[in-house]
């Protein structure tokens, strides 16, 4: 136990890393996730055309099925959507937006929720009532309403023309803020139960600050529901973003995210153009799947009692 270990040394010596290298599922999931992220980042290199460059689109290329079907077209490996966008390119470019929004929004939700939940649960009494009623108010204003509110403010103070430049930030903000109560209430409940336990009292006796007790001691013992909610929320956030775009609040329609790509295909689902929804849908499922698997794995690893040795 040399204290002068390099960062890498500490990482490679840590439990998480140790179990990671030995867990096939975790390893494969992480590889796939990495692959997806890389593909999204390097999308311009991997695709034949940029679906966000509108000039390259032609409606007459619309709704071409994937190459392996009869009417397929070699130019479009996975077919095209109604606007003639190559699905493959659209997925990769869309994944950029969706991943960023999904992950950032969930991080924001989680951050807000965890802080508020910890404070509410730990402080109790008035603070608790106040924060929890705030959560009730927030819940009443679902992301839909919140988006409208934020947009109205944005228009009033910044001007609507700039919207598309800030769309991403606004979306992250809206989705991030709309759902914090989920976390807050869960954490609060957990804190209520944990704070009666003796190890918390022991920490109090040590003279630790409240903040430290909340984050260092209680929070790690409340991780498991957070993990479950988070993995669900990422999928949710990606879909919500698409739903908000209907209200004119999403990303610009000319730059479809993964969610809006899926959503735009709903109309076509029954009429046979399945690929517009199903292929990006599968992509989303794989994405969420690996995130979930990693989440499950991480949760187990972070629980010392579950070490398999």
């Amino acid at each position, binding site marked *: *136990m040399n*204290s*002068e270990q390099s960062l890498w040394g500490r990482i490679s010596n840590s*439990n998480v890393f*140790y179990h990671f290298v030995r867990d096939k599922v975790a390893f494969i999931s992480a590889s796939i996730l990495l692959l997806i992220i890389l593909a999204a980042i390097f999308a311009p290199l991997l695709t034949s055309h940029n679906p966000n460059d509108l000039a390259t689109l032609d409606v007459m290329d619309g709704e071409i099925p994937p190459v392996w079907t009869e009417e397929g077209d070699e130019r479009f490996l996975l077919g095209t959507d109604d606007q003639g966008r190559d699905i493959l390119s659209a997925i990769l470019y869309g994944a950029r937006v969706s991943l960023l929004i999904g992950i950032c929004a969930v991080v924001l939700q989680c951050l807000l929720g965890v802080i508020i939940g910890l404070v509410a649960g730990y402080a109790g009494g008035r603070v608790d009532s106040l924060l929890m009623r705030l959560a009730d108010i927030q819940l009443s204003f679902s992301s839909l309403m919140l988006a409208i509110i934020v947009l109205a403010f944005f228009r009033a103070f910044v001007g609507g023309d700039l919207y598309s430049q800030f769309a991403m930030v606004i979306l992250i903000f809206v989705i991030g803020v709309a759902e914090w109560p989920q976390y807050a209430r869960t954490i609060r409940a957990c804190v209520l139960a944990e704070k*009666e*336990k*003796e*190890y918390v*009292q*022991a*920490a*109090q*006796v*040590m*003279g*630790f*600050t*409240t903040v*430290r007790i909340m984050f*260092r*001691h209680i929070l*790690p*013992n409340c991780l498991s529901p957070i993990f479950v909610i988070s993995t669900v929320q990422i999928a949710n956030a990606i879909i919500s973003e698409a739903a908000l775009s209907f209200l004119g609040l999403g990303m610009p329609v000319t730059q479809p995210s993964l969610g809006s790509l899926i959503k735009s295909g709903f109309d076509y689902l029954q009429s046979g153009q399945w690929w517009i929804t199903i292929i990006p849908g599968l992509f989303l499922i794989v994405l969420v799947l690996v995130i979930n698997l990693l989440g499950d794995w991480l949760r187990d690893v*972070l*629980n*010392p*009692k*579950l*070490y*398999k*040795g």
Partner: protein
Amino acid sequence: MALLEVNNLKIEFPSRHGVAVAVEDVSFEVNPGEILGLVGESGAGKSTIGNAIIDLLSPPGRVAGGDVFLKGEKISSLPASRIRQIRGAEIGFIFQDPMTSLNPLFTVEEQLMETILANLDVTQESAKQKALNMLEQVGIPEPEIRIKQYPHQFSGGMRQRVGIAIALSADPALIIADEPTTALDVSIQDQILQLIRSLCKKRQVGCILVTHDMGVIANITDRVAVMYQGNLVESGTTEQILQRPEHPYTKSLISAVPRADVKLKRFPLVNYIEKASVGFSQIDVSNHWLGQTSASDVSSVAKGEDLLRVEHVNLRFITKNALLAKNRRYIQASDDVSFTVKKGETFGLVGESGSGKSTIARVIAGIYPPESGRIFFADQEISAMSERERRPIRRQIQMVFQNPYSSMNPRMRVQDIIAEPIYFHKLAGSRKEVEMIVGDLLDHVGLGRRAGIKFPHEFSGGQRQRISIARALATRPQLLICDEPTSALDVSVQAQILNLLKDLQDELGLTMLFISHDLPVIRQMCDRVSVMRYGKILEQNETEALFISPQHDYTKNLLALIPHMDHLSREGLMVQQG
């Protein structure tokens, strides 16, 4: 035919750092009606054997070899359904840690009843009767009210008794009792042991009794097995082992038993250390980190003056809530308690289980606010302070909890648990220094630095208790509240730890509030003692005076019940007189 037969049992805990062998090649047997005492070093593998017998080793643990036979049937590697029938009905098990083994969400009644109903063929009604009966037998006062309560409303000793009641309630043929009386005062301990004894004799029940208390061994066991570092080093009849120990470890163990008759300066030390894996070292406090004072210490109090003053502290717990105040029921856990503790002394608190000792300790430590009354620390009224004002003082009042396991964050490594207060209160200069200090503390409590990377659940009961002590010392407190600090330690380790505390006290003027059921230990450690019952202080005196001429009837009774160890051999043993 032996009731239980254990042959060549070997138990391992594999981990990424290698396989730890907890029990190696252990064989013994228990006959019907017989009580086998299992003694040994803390961490020797006693609890592990018990767990292995009923196939409940905690996860990475596995039985690597050997067999277990119950009434001639091989019960190791039985199918899950069959072993489940054996548990409870055939083998009653009392876990070492009473705090965590009761489900916090169910009342004591539910937990008792379900055991009875699951294992015995009785009606709901008679199960209820039996449950009440059991509680009464283990000495819980007012069982009709208590049975409806939840575990957290019980004191440490009461929880332990509930655990015993549950284990005995299904009339098992074999009882495995893992340190069943550590949190009990002598009179109740006596009652429980008699209960077990009479069960064994009357119904030919076999019993494995794991204990550190040589008095208990001497008084009720028929045979004794001694364990050391995973091996069974010696076994024989009680008399044989106690009077003519053969193995050097046994010898040194017996020599370290604290004496109830005379007060010694230091505890006699065991110098048998076979593999010397973990070295106890006597510390040189003047050069040691523990001896340094930090700027924020309260140094205004001179040795011999009052460091802690407790004045008329009252605290009630609600036992039955109701809308109207008059319908509420309370337990007066602390009834007008007053005492003072001088700087540099050790103040003892003894008394019946459930008498409010832990409660008052918690009030002083600032966990419960007192309902009325005042507490002064170094002449500052800490009971009236806000949390913020109080924080700097908190470091100086530390507490060793009665239940070490539940008082440690299960998600933190032991080294982090101990290092955290050092970091937090900035008691060390660098990261490296902290790591050194932590390793040092672990050494001093006999665990060794390597223990640092493990998590609390990977330790034995006694080892956890030592971690808890190390953590309390890490803040370099002025006042140390010890709530049963050594109940799970074998006498040799106990001696080490208590000597460490004594050293600290001598050199630094460490002040201690010492709660214990172990009267010999109290006699050795404390300068003054208070006796508590029903939340009140009955009597308070200089230790020697109290032991020699107790005033209150309750005290007299208590002292009379100290297990006699006259037949304990002390000759030829290496006793260090300090």
